[in-house]
């Protein structure tokens, strides 16, 4: 099955490729992998004092749909609050990118990556608050 134009667009010009400092307490890192094909996806968010995601980066090793899904995910979470980002669903990605059924797991991976990044950010913040007390 051919890739949709939107997938090709993100694949050819991926947004927000790269890395943020893993050790920054305001950066949450999520690394997830697909058991089916060995794809691996790293998604990072940088959250400011107001709880808004001011930057997002990704690095994905996998098929075009996996790259497009994570590229789109970083675009979407930028400017959102942590709480808003948590409501993002893989079905939104499927719709936007017109993913065929066999590529739905790519969008699931992107959703998992966002959740993992949010969870990592939260864990870091909790640890920081605890050490301050």
């Amino acid at each position: 099955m051919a890739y949709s134009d939107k997938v090709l667009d993100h694949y050819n010009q991926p947004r927000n490729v790269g890395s943020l400092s893993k050790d920054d307490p305001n950066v949450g890192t999520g690394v997830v992998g697909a058991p089916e094909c060995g794809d691996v996806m790293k998604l990072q968010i940088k959250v400011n004092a107001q709880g808004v995601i001011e930057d997002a980066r990704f690095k994905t090793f996998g098929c075009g749909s996996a790259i497009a899904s994570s590229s789109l995910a970083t675009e979407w979470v930028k400017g959102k609050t942590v709480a808003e980002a948590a409501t993002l669903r893989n079905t939104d990605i499927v719709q936007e990118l017109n993913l065929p059924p066999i590529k739905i797991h790519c969008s699931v991976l992107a959703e998992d990556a966002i959740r993992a990044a949010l969870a990592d950010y939260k864990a870091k913040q909790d640890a920081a608050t605890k050490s301050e007390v």
Partner: protein
Amino acid sequence: MAILNDSAVEPGTPPAESPPPFVVDSDGKVDLDRWSGPGEPPPDAFTVLGLPRRLLLDPKHLDLRFRSLIRDLHPDRFHVSGPDAVRKAERHSSLANDAYRALRDFERRVRLLLELEGHAVDEKFRPSPALLGQVLEINEALDALQEALADGAPAAAAAARGEIAATGRELGDARQALSDRLYDAARRWDAAQAPDAAADLASLARRDLRAALGEASYLDNLLARVQAALLPTQAPTPTQS
């Protein structure tokens, strides 16, 4: 059978009540009508070689069983009985060969036995965050290597290869630890086959076996990519002389 009496009792030696090989009848005679060929589902490898369904087999015992069976089934012995008998002997010989190949390798044997017991391994392994981190590192180093080779930067290529090799060694260690886990679970599965063993021991061991095998395939795929990247591929392929 003489083989059973002769073999030293070692850990993993099948119990003395091993059935005779499939093709041998109760009088110890070779019966070439046991399997009528591809139209009929072939007996499983354990049945063919006359071994109990256990995961830890003494390899020496397995070899002896196989060699003795192959000797008994050698088509040359059946020339006197006519071409039909030779054909049947060939059929059963190939069955014995397949069975031996299926059982000789420990991990292949585990997969086969789980399949026979109706618990085929699904390969949906969920890698741990630590392993995913290593997968990411390897992928990044593989990309860096590609780039360095394309740019003709030997120092950068060597650095990337070094990184790939280092992570590869870590993965190799993890693979070794996994083999140990598999052997441990196999021992527990075998022990759980005793008539008086608690029922949940077998299912626990089976769960561990399936999990370890799923992880093993994942690691093997990764290690294959690492090895392929470390091969000196950029040298021009010598022409066959």
